[in-house]
């Protein structure tokens, strides 16, 4: 019972596939020749040209990037027809047959298309087979390429962070002062606790602009004192901070 409608949809699906755009003029010509059951060696040029132009006008049927090539083929077809119409004193020899060139091309193209369909099956088969060397390398445990940053980079990042902070547009509470020493201790404490500090995160955690600025100065001080190592993977990204002694054991 259920079989029938299923098959019907399958058929219409495959039908739709056949309606895919024609890649090139030979593609379309071959299709028309088969559709009209034309003998490829004796193509009625007028019939095929009319059909061909018909398809050209239905623009959804051809690959529009290739329109020029489709039009060129139309011109060739019309040229062949005009050659055939010319009155001649002697009948044409085999070699002079105006359709000859086109027929040769079509025959060759037809062969290529057939070879393609076989290769396509092979491709399909091969894609389902997996060999071990084809396995993508396993993702490395996250260890980014680290580069120590210069003070200029840090300063640059600082201004970016500043801008972000300013953009937050909050009110500065007056009267509170932050000591460099305290912040340095705070950073060290964070580092001792977690081993690593995401400075952008830390910066943003500061309660106000003043605290944020002091935290950055503290970081500079810590770097200067060679207590910490700061690393920025890429410009404008966060700065990661480690304690120096840890950095030695990391090597």
């Amino acid at each position, binding site marked *: 019972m259920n079989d029938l409608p299923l098959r019907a949809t399958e058929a219409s699906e495959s*039908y739709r596939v*056949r*309606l895919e755009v024609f*890649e*090139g*003029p*030979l593609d379309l010509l071959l299709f028309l020749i*088969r*559709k009209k*059951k034309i003998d490829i060696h004796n193509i009625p040029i007028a019939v095929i040209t009319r059909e061909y132009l018909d398809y050209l006008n239905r623009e959804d049927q051809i690959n529009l990037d*290739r329109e020029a*090539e489709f039009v*060129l*083929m139309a011109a060739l077809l019309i040229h062949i027809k005009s050659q055939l119409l010319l009155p001649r004193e002697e009948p044409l020899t085999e070699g002079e047959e105006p359709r000859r060139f086109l027929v040769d*091309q079509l025959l*060759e*193209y*037809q*062969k*290529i*298309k*057939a*070879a*393609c*369909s*076989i*290769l*396509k099956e*092979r*491709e*399909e*088969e*091969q*894609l*389902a*087979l*997996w*060999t*071990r*060397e084809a*396995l*993508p390398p396993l993702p490395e445990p996250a260890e980014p390429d680290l580069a120590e940053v210069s003070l200029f980079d840090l300063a640059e990042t600082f201004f970016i962070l500043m801008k972000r902070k300013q953009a937050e547009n909050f009110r500065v509470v007056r009267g509170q002062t932050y000591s460099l020493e305290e912040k340095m201790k705070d950073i060290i404490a964070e580092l001792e606790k977690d081993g690593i500090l995401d400075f952008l995160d830390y910066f943003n955690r500061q309660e106000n602009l003043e605290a944020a600025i002091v935290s950055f100065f503290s970081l500079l001080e810590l770097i200067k004192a060679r207590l910490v190592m700061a690393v920025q993977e890429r410009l404008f990204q966060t700065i990661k901070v480690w304690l120096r002694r840890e950095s030695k054991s990391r090597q």
Partner: protein
Amino acid sequence: MTMAPELRDIIEALIFISLEPLSLEKIQETLSDYPPSEVEKALNELLQKTASSAGGITIIQSGGGYVFTTRPEFDPWVRRFLKIDRKSKLSSASLETLSIVAYHQPITLSEISALRNVDSSYTIKTLLEKKLVKITGRKKSPGNPLIYRTTERFLAYFGLNSLDELPTEEEIAKILGEDQTVEQAPKP
């Protein structure tokens, strides 16, 4: 009697451990203490054994050697494991261009374009990037155009061992014959 099965298992181990398709020559070279004909016989036994037995993996001949692969029916699970939704296939333009190069090599770009009646410079570029074709020199003709050939990778991609295994004239003729009978449904 007892020798042959042993040899078969040795070969299996060698194919398993090899990082690239392992050729018969290489197996024979490794097992130089056995007569080459016996190695070949054992290899064939091994191939028969793996082909006839069930299991997740099998041995195929591809790219000029023997290699372990998963059986095609396990593709969905392998892809799930590797987190690959689907392998990308060649476009019909690429496939067409590639078969032209395969059958007509060495060939130039303008010759390819003439056969397809379509400018193929972009397609050949993608095939070069995919390393399915390569430039092997220049033709001694006006403009000295580049000459293209297919690569080893092309063979492996389609599971071919050499260009001799490309679809033959007979296979192509068969397809063309079938096509003519299939083309019944007229287009609206």
